[in-house]
């Protein structure tokens, strides 16, 4: 027991190391939040592009672009995307959080696009027909009738995507950003003791994600309140 306490003392209290973990958690959360915002933005646009149809009911050039984007992003590992973004595309940008957020945002966008597309397709076509019959334009129908329902359909998988994204940011250590995982690595390197820093970081991730999933659960229930009347 004393042994475990001394390990804890070395890994968290000595030299005020706990501050490092908090800073690391801050970096992790910043990247995850910015990236998911970028992801939702890109994802919505790409989903609409992929669903776009010309008058003959066939896919347009936008459909093709969206499909290529989704294929490329889903067909390459996110570590490689991050390394390419850091060492090749944004070589001269030294704001690590910006580069990582962009990289993860573009990555997440592809997955979010498919989630939102599924959400839109799940809205009954009768809703669109009703909207158009009532004299709304096709944009108005989309904006006020389809998208709100689509968002509700897409919420559970979107929350899931955010949690996945949060955990996926653990690879930013590759480009020398001090996120939570990297900090745990640094501490275990400095102390030659892997157990406490790694388990500690795992516990921090778990607690944060547990809190988030509880909040998402509440949000979901709120949105469902109008369903069963």
């Amino acid at each position, binding site marked *: 027991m004393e042994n475990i306490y001394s390990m804890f003392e070395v890994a968290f209290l000595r030299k005020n190391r706990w501050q490092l973990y908090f800073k690391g958690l801050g970096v992790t959360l910043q990247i995850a939040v910015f990236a998911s915002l970028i992801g939702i933005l890109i994802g919505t646009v790409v989903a609409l592009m992929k669903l776009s149809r010309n008058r003959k009911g066939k896919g347009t050039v936008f459909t093709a672009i969206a499909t290529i984007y989704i294929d490329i992003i889903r067909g390459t590992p996110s570590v490689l995307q991050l390394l390419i973004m850091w060492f090749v595309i944004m070589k*001269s940008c*030294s704001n690590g959080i910006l580069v990582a957020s962009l990289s993860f945002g573009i990555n997440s966008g592809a997955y979010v696009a498919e989630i939102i597309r599924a959400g839109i397709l799940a809205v009954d076509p009768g809703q669109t027909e009703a909207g158009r019959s009532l004299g709304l334009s096709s944009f108005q129908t989309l904006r006020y009738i389809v998208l709100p329902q689509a968002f509700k359909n897409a919420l559970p998988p979107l929350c899931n995507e955010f949690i996945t994204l949060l955990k996926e940011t653990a690879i930013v250590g590759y480009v*020398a950003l*001090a996120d939570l995982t990297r900090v745990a*690595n*640094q501490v*275990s*390197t*400095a102390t*030659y003791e892997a157990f406490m820093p790694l388990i500690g970081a795992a516990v921090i991730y778990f607690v944060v994600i547990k809190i988030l999933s509880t909040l998402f659960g509440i949000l979901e229930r709120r949105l469902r309140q109008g369903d069963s009347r």
Partner: protein
Amino acid sequence: MKKIVALLLAGTMAISLAACGSSSSSGEAAPAAEETEEAVEETEEAAEETEEAAEAEGPLADGVLTVGTNATFPPFEYLGDDGTPDGFDMALIKAIGEKIGVEVEIQDMEFSTLVQSIGTKIDIAIAGMTVTPERQETVDFSEPYYDAVQYVLLPVDSEIRTYEDLEGKKIAVQLGTTGNFIAEEIEGAELATYDKATDACNDLVNGRADCMIIDKNPAEVFQGKFSDKLVAVDGAQFSFEVENYAIAMPKGDTELAEKINGALQELKEDGTFDQLVEDYITNYSAE
């Protein structure tokens, strides 16, 4: 169609299983066979020794010495043209292995995990590793085989000159290296820790860090590679202490330590060591 797939899967599984089996058995059997032959040929004394070695448990029991390294640290270790680790340390440990009579198997891994892995995933580590009191709490070191001097790599237009100038700067280092620990002690310094020394150097060139602290020889290699962009400054200017490279070994394994130190001594005496220094360090040229 399903049957064909099933057949293919079964086939692959059989082959992969066979591959695992043969590689491990040949790996263990070959040195053992050699040992027996030697025992027959050589005198009784030698035979007794082999018996002892066979009885002894520990890193050398299976005739294979698993050596951890991190091949991003030229000229001591780097990936050779065939993609396997090469360099001064690799040549040295292979020569030592030959002297002791064991097969050397190199494992390329992250530098920061080397010390923790000794005794479990690897037997010993040779990776241009500096002897420090912190590391000595976990592992034992062989006799030092090389003087380590830390260098500071700076962009050509940098105004950093003294230790005080380093304070509050963004410093690129390789995670777990001596440079990492020196940088941690510098007041207000912001550390960027990389798994690969080469990545740290790239980012220094890209202007993402103010300087980089790394051992002398790799610093000179990097400086040679980016001679129009970087200068390498001797750490003595920044009053860094001189330290030594040594081989890290499991704590308390005196038998192994004696063997390795003995072999190292022999290599120094018969001139092999100096030859390796000349081949790998003096004549090293960055592509």
